[in-house]
């Protein structure tokens, strides 16, 4: 039996972070909303099991990551449902920094974007990112290092010298 109250608490406490993560990974705010909603819909359908999961938010992030790399199939179902509920309310245009960052992130491989988002938005240490991604810590350090080096090339005000060695530790 699924417990709606516990799901609602989970949803309220994590959805803000999930949308940030979706935006940083998918590179489009509307797509981020779509895929995060679908991830939560899937979470609710399996909430009886997922409620006992040791890290449901990490599970959610993995679903978001996979959906972000599989957009075509993902959008077909949810957009039909979203079409019935009307368009979302208008929001203000993003700030200049956000536009620059998202444009730069689009030039990075998905794995680099995921690692950077987990580091900068969730403050996760390298070990936890590695555990969540299922790769060695050295791989995560490489993703972070290369991702940041590329961002330093693409973003004004970010210099490679600023990125210290222990920035990835």
């Amino acid at each position, binding site marked *: 039996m699924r417990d*709606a109250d516990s799901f*609602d*608490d989970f*949803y*309220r406490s994590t959805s803000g972070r999930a*949308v*940030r993560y979706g*935006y*940083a990974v998918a590179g489009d*705010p509307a797509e*981020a909303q779509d895929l*995060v*909603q679908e991830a*939560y*819909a*899937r979470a*609710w*359908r*399996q909430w009886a*099991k*997922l409620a006992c*999961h*040791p*890290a449901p938010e*990490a*599970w959610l992030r*993995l*679903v978001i990551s*996979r959906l972000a790399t599989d957009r075509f*199939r993902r959008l077909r*179902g949810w957009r039909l*449902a979203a079409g019935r*509920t009307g368009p*979302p*309310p208008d929001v*203000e245009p*993003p*700030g*200049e*920094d*956000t536009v*620059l*960052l*998202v444009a730069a992130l689009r030039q990075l491989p998905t794995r680099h974007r995921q690692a*950077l988002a987990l580091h*900068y938005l969730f*403050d996760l240490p390298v*070990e936890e990112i590695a*555990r*969540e*991604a*299922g790769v060695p810590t050295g791989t995560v350090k490489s993703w972070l290092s290369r991702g*940041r080096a590329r*961002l330093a090339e693409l*973003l004004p*005000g*970010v210099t490679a010298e*600023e*990125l210290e060695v222990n*920035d990835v530790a």
Partner: protein
Amino acid sequence: MSRELHRYYRSLAADTDERVLPAPDRLRRSADRWARRRAAITVLAAAGLVAGTVAGSQLVLAAGPGPDPVPPPAGTPTPQPSSAAPSVAPSPTTPSPSVGRTPGSRSPVVTTTSPAAATPVTIPDRAFFVLPAANDAGTGNYFGPGPVLPALCGATPGDERVVTQRARSLPYRRTGAAADEVPSGTYRHSITIYRAGGAGAALAELRAAVRACPEQPARGTPPVTVRQRLLPDSGYGDESVLFETRTPYRDANGDPSGGDEVHLVRAVRSGDVVTVLWEQGWESTSTQRAQFDADSRRAVEAIRRWLD
């Protein structure tokens, strides 16, 4: 750390926070509706497959060699091979995250285990408690600089032992308050990581600072005195310090109008981490103890889950 990259990501986070997802009950209804529809389509597809298989096999048998079988009387139900019974197959688009596994072809095991007994050096969002729906003022919270304790005659208990600190302002609503009312109060909620052994010393210094500062002048016109005193406290984390700040209520002219405005502050230690909940009221409201205690427990529980 790269300050500039942090600034870019903070900008992204701030812009994203303006985007509103549907309420959880609405999302649940949509998800259930889709699940029912997909299940119905799957059953229909399976039934169609069975019917087609049966019809096809009858055609093949009818065209085969041998004496013509005696046709069954009209109206006799056609037997169906039991092996072809329809079954509801799991949707290919639905991940199947059995507990302890993650969806998809790879199966990295996600766990929350942290390096044993290691004191963290960063404070993630999840270390901060979440208000239940009945107390959610709908304003979200704001992480930003500012004092995490009321003024205590200039004392700065534990400051020199701090490793890192994060603090937020969190408006809340008392249970039962109307949704369109202004918030019932605001919490200043901080989490501080101290060097090994420093958290206990910080709490001892906080106790001493409150004792040493029973009253002090507060800003205001006309001048007003704010009084502090320690209150007995137990049952929160490894140890806790609870104290109140008390100022006389004043009318619109600043004259005492009877009674005191009382705010509670509780600092709770969990290992080398201290979380402080400072209730600041909203337009001269005083702290409601039951609500404050309940939210203190939530704050401690969030710390415990983070550190476990």
